[in-house]
């Protein structure tokens, strides 16, 4: 039978329905193998859809056979497809590379549950990306959140626990805010389907509840997306979670929230209210800029390598928000491209750190001095991904930075200020990345690695694969770029 029309549903239900079965796979290694196979399958599904979509396809799916708005509709366009690629790619990559790392951090008898939670997180994030129903997004947001709390709580250090508790509290507040916003919009429009909302919100006479709803939704999702200054949960959660979980979540978790934020705002509000575009940018642009500057500055002085990169994530989220806040085709393209490129760079960096962690228990930066001598390959991959983060030409990060500056130049009289801030933070990124590189390569060793030699081969190979992807997508960025500009077109098409 032809499964092609079912792909959007399969994207979610394959990992979701596999999760309970994974719990049953007690023997050593089997749960890992099962979860990896499922994640790869999801990635294949996402890739399949992405290729069709870059040829102009658009997937729609009526759950239960009930047409929208009565039933729940799934809809996969360019933007969601890009997100799906990131999510499934991150999940599959981290699993493929991470067996040794996970074995060393999670006890064998707890592993089946860990992998089940992994698949649930994957299913939840994918579910958000494919859904076209405001409430359904909430449900899947909760699946992904609960599963991520579980994953992060698997961190070996006791500090993971307060960190995940904070994440849980703030995440729940964010989700509840979103729920309030959706409720208010539902109250005024009587519908939950995003497209239907878009059509009906314009007819609403009493604007106050919609205004409050937009506020609640934006703040709630900004909390989930760790937009500065609502990012306080993020650094500790990323620092203390198991290394592979950091790879997975840093690459995609906050991005999905940004995706919903952008999509909700552009689909439902922008198209109907003339003033919403300026509200949106006047609210988010300062946050984006502040986030870029403050988080980059903090990252320069962080001593723990994972915390440092977590702070850098906050800054990078600022870039994405900034691009979206221009409310232009170019700005959104830059944002969407940066979603992808940052996932590549950060995923690669955290993979390399997981590799370092195989031989270094203490990941404070000064303890890692001289690591390049015993782990030259890992360090080189880390440097490449780091340069991609900075935006050195020839890497993926350069492409999005180029697009972002190009888009910023259209922003009227204050364009130079925007460019200045972007450049300043790039230089700060250079400073903190260089600090890492120099420590690894040039500083005399402080601690001897627990054992000599490189990281496990599969981890090393995957890390290099991602590092090369950073270069590859820096030189031949057409594929993600096509999706990104198609996504921007879709979003702006609604705003017109």
């Amino acid at each position: 039978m032809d499964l092609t029309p079912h792909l959007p549903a399969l994207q979610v239900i394959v990992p979701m329905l596999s999760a309970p079965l994974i719990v049953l796979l007690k023997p050593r290694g089997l749960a890992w193998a099962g979860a990896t196979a499922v994640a790869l399958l999801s990635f294949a599904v996402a890739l399949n859809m992405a290729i069709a979509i870059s040829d102009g396809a658009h997937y729609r799916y009526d759950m239960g056979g009930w047409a929208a708005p009565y039933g729940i509709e799934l809809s996969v366009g360019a933007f969601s497809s890009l997100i799906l690629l990131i999510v499934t790619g991150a999940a599959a990559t981290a699993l493929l590379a991470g067996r040794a790392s996970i074995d060393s951090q999670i006890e064998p008898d707890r592993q089946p549950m860990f992998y089940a939670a992994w698949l649930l997180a994957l299913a939840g994030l994918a579910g958000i990306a494919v859904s076209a129903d405001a409430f359904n997004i909430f449900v899947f947001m909760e699946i992904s959140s609960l599963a991520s709390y579980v994953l992060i709580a698997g961190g070996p250090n006791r500090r993971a626990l307060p960190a995940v508790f904070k994440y849980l509290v703030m995440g729940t507040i964010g989700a509840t805010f979103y729920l309030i916003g959706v409720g208010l919009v539902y109250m005024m429009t009587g519908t939950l389907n995003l497209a239907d909302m878009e059509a009906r919100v314009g007819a609403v006479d009493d604007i106050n509840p919609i205004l409050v709803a937009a506020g609640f939704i934006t703040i709630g999702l900004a909390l989930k997306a760790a937009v500065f200054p609502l990012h306080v949960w993020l650094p500790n959660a990323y620092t203390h979670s198991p290394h592979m979980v950091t790879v997975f979540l840093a690459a995609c978790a906050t991005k999905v929230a940004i995706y919903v934020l952008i999509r909700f705002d552009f689909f439902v509000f922008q198209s109907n209210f003339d003033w919403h575009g300026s509200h949106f940018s006047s609210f988010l642009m300062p946050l984006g800029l502040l986030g870029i500057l403050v988080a980059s500055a903090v990252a320069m002085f962080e001593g723990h390598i994972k915390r440092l990169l977590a702070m850098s994530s906050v800054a990078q989220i600022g870039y994405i928000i900034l691009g979206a806040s221009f409310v232009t085709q170019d700005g959104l393209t830059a944002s969407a491209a940066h979603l992808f490129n940052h996932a590549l760079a950060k995923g690669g960096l955290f993979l390399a750190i997981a590799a370092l962690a195989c031989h270094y228990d203490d990941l404070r930066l000064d303890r890692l001095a001289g690591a390049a001598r015993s782990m030259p390959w890992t360090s080189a991959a880390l440097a490449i991904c780091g340069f991609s983060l900075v935006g050195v030409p020839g890497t993926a990060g350069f492409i999005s930075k180029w697009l972002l500056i190009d888009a910023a130049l259209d922003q009227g009289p204050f364009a130079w200020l925007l460019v200045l801030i972007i450049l300043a933070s790039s230089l700060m990124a250079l400073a903190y990345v260089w600090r890492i590189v120099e420590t690894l390569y040039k500083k005399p060793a402080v601690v001897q690695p627990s054992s000599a030699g490189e990281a496990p081969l599969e981890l090393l190979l995957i890390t290099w694969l991602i590092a090369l992807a950073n270069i590859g997508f820096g030189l031949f960025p057409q594929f993600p770029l096509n999706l990104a500009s198609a996504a921007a077109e879709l979003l702006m098409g609604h705003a017109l």
Partner: protein
Amino acid sequence: MIIVFALFLLTLLVITALAIVQTTNLFVAVMLTSIFSLLMASNFFILDAADVALTEAAVGAGITTVIFLAALMLTTEHEKPHLSRRKLNTVVITILASLIIYATFDKPRLGDPDAPVHQHLAPWYLEKTPEYMDFPNVVTAILGSFRGYDTLGEVFVVFAACIGVLFILGVKPPEGSTYNPYRSGLKHHLIPQVVGRLLIPFLVLFGLYVQFHGEYSPGGGFQAGALIASAIILYALLEGEAAALRAVPRSVLLGLVIGGATLYGGVGVVCILMGGNFLEYTVLLDNPVAAQQTGIILIEAGVGMAVCGALLSIFHAFAARPMRV
């Protein structure tokens, strides 16, 4: 008359909420939370939401309280009094509250039949349910079929919580803690014993009724799962952890969760295999109405199993944790 009662309930709700914030005894706070949930449930009932009221009573007032108490037993009952230096919070929160209240003046009046919510989707559901499903409870129809995908998601939220709790509490407890599997304060108390034993069969029976009668009256898988779980938790409280685990072992519980979730998802997959969309029950049988009914009964059974198993697993994970001495 009912309006005055509603006003009274709502006022009581606010007072309870404030009392919860004020008290420094966590045990008291949890008990007040239970009362808060009950008040909420009554309110829901007044507002014609019978299904929600039943769920809130079973889950909010029942299960939540039990889990809270179980957690308190493992931690501490007393909140350290501290001087709140966070004046800013109060300010922020007051501003937010007044904003929301301000926004309410544009909201449709309570019960206004012309409100958009009553104009758009709801009439369709009310009209089509008899036609497509041929049973009275529209809530069950939406839950099970029209928005069955949400409900599937919800089952997996419960599943995630279940494996999450098992995962998080799956690490070895620290040294110096003891575990008494027969601890149960109620075993030798006559009145709880008698009343409790009387209650358990009725609870289970009521649970089963709610499960299988969900299409006709308020109720369904969630409520049934929660009710049966409460019955077994009550049994555990009366007879002790070990006895309850003997009656329903852990493996059975996990099997229930996995089986329930898989049953639900499996029905959806079968729909795909039979040529429909995911969860499109209509393709299951020749007669679409009967097919819808069958599908909904099956997935409700899955929900019931999963919720019951998950809640009990969570309870046992807490209860089996040794207390600190």
